[in-house]
């Protein structure tokens, strides 16, 4: 299990999410656990997570590598089945629904590492994503918005000839074309050059403002975290903190200062919450 960089403040912050249940929420996880076999023992990838995501809010999930963020996202999409717990979408129990059913309900997931397809072209996957309302103008615009020239990319195969950054942009374009009400982006910044990162944030933000559903972005980028309505810190398989960005972000920074510096430098680099 990964060492947890973040500590303290567990109790009070989680209560917020418990209160959140009473509000109108679109996605609610109740005591979700995911177990995996590791050698002879069983480990908890996710350990009794209960959290709600409310309509109209922009969430960022962060936390150390191996903490369970991607597993969390895949549980919502139906890619990973929880060993126990319940998942609700608009108060409907969707714990047993498969990926296709969830996609049709309006849940979408942009992969951290999008799969490659031999022979399948960018055009093909975008057409599938756009579905019935997918005219070419719409599809072309989805690529242009992500900095890809449709003429150059539509007929390219989604295989090893595309770079990591190109794969990510096409992945994001496909999920945005699908227009789900709940979208989870799994580290959208990975492989995308820093010059284009601001543009990428804009596209995701604009989509959120237009769409009005729930956007959940797994990210480690402060520039993205600082724009979130709420930040969820997932660590050691649990939700460690949840709250407004202005409250959570300084705590994260403070924890990291404590972790990596031998001598306490007070609030020189971050707001010390101790």
């Amino acid at each position: 299990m990964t060492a947890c960089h973040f500590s303290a403040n567990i109790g009070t912050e989680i209560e917020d999410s418990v209160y959140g249940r009473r509000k109108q929420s679109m996605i609610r996880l109740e005591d979700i656990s995911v177990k995996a076999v590791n050698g002879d023992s069983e480990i908890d990838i996710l350990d009794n997570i209960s959290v709600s995501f409310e309509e109209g809010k922009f969430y960022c999930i962060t936390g150390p590598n191996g903490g369970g963020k991607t597993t969390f996202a895949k549980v919502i999409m139906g890619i990973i089945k929880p060993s126990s717990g319940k998942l609700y979408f608009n108060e409907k129990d969707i714990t047993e629904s498969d990926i296709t059913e969830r996609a049709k309900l309006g849940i979408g997931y942009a992969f951290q590492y999008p799969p490659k397809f031999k022979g399948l072209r960018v055009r093909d996957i975008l057409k599938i994503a756009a579905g019935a309302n997918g005219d070419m103008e719409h599809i072309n615009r989805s690529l242009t918005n992500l900095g890809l020239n449709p003429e150059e990319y539509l007929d390219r195969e989604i295989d090893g000839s595309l770079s990591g950054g190109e794969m990510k942009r096409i992945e994001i374009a496909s999920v945005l074309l699908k227009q789900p009400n709940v979208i989870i982006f799994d580290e959208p910044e990975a492989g995308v050059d820093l010059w284009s990162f601001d543009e990428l944030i804009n596209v995701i933000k604009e989509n959120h403002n237009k769409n009005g559903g729930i956007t959940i972005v797994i990210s480690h980028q402060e520039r993205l975290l600082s724009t979130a309505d709420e930040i969820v810190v997932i660590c050691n398989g649990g939700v460690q903190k949840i709250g407004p960005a202005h409250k959570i972000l300084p705590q994260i920074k403070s924890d990291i200062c404590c972790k990596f510096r031998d001598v306490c430098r007070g609030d020189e680099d971050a707001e010390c919450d101790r």
Partner: protein
Amino acid sequence: MLNAIDKKLLNTVADLHDVPQGAYSIRKDGAGLSINSTDNIIVSQKKDRQGINVIVKPGTRNQSVHIPVIISLSGVKEVVYNTIDIGEDSDVLVVAGCGIHNSGSKESRHDGVHEIIVRKNAKIRYVEKHYGEGEGTGKRVLNPKTIVHVYEGGTADFEMIQIEGVDDTYRLTEAKLYKNATLTMTEKLMTHRDQEAKSDVIVELLGKNSSVKVISRSVAKGSSAQIFQPRVIAKAEGKGHVECDSIIMDNGKIRSVPEIWAEHPLAELTHEAAIGRIAGEQLIKLMSLGLTEEEAVKIVIEGFLR
């Protein structure tokens, strides 16, 4: 002249809706049905045996010739020998292919030999589709043999496709490449049920700077079996690459034996082969866009065999 079944077969194997414009030969149920030449492409019946000659005059450019074969009678067995001669400096498209509709209990079988000569600096794109259908118990068998000579500076682009309904097939392709000649051969194969397919390819690089790329992509479903043995032999300073890539499903069996063989110190040969199931991540991605698992499998296979 052509009934509905004939038209469907022609459409599937040669993208033809009816008798084509330009040069063609349509063979049906063991006999020549219709034949036509143009000023530059002469199509004629062979005198000494079953089959046709296609002679493309030197310098013929941007023209095509269709030479499909259809069999809709159960129990037709034929051996056909075709010679296709592409004159110097020409650039043409040749569409071959064979469709069998077998509604009876007897085996229908077409053994076609195509000898293709690509003269100096000529260019050919050759498309061959094989297809079988019909409700009968009679087997649909296709055994194509293709012999290719690509002379100095010639370019040959071959696409051979067998997607559906052929019960047994043994394909043999032999190619000889001379100085500066290039051959790209793409073979696409899908087998179902208890079908069996075997494909041997033997390419000899005989001239300096000759180059070949042999690519085979296949899908084995049901309890079908496939064997691939592509071999590139470099007897001169040439380049060769062999690639076998297969998706295995259900209880299919696939054997891939790519072979490279150099007899010249400056030859450069490579090969790669892979057999595997459809990657789970590919299906998950497509399902997360709203497709069912069956739809996702179909899309992945269609793309793979495109």
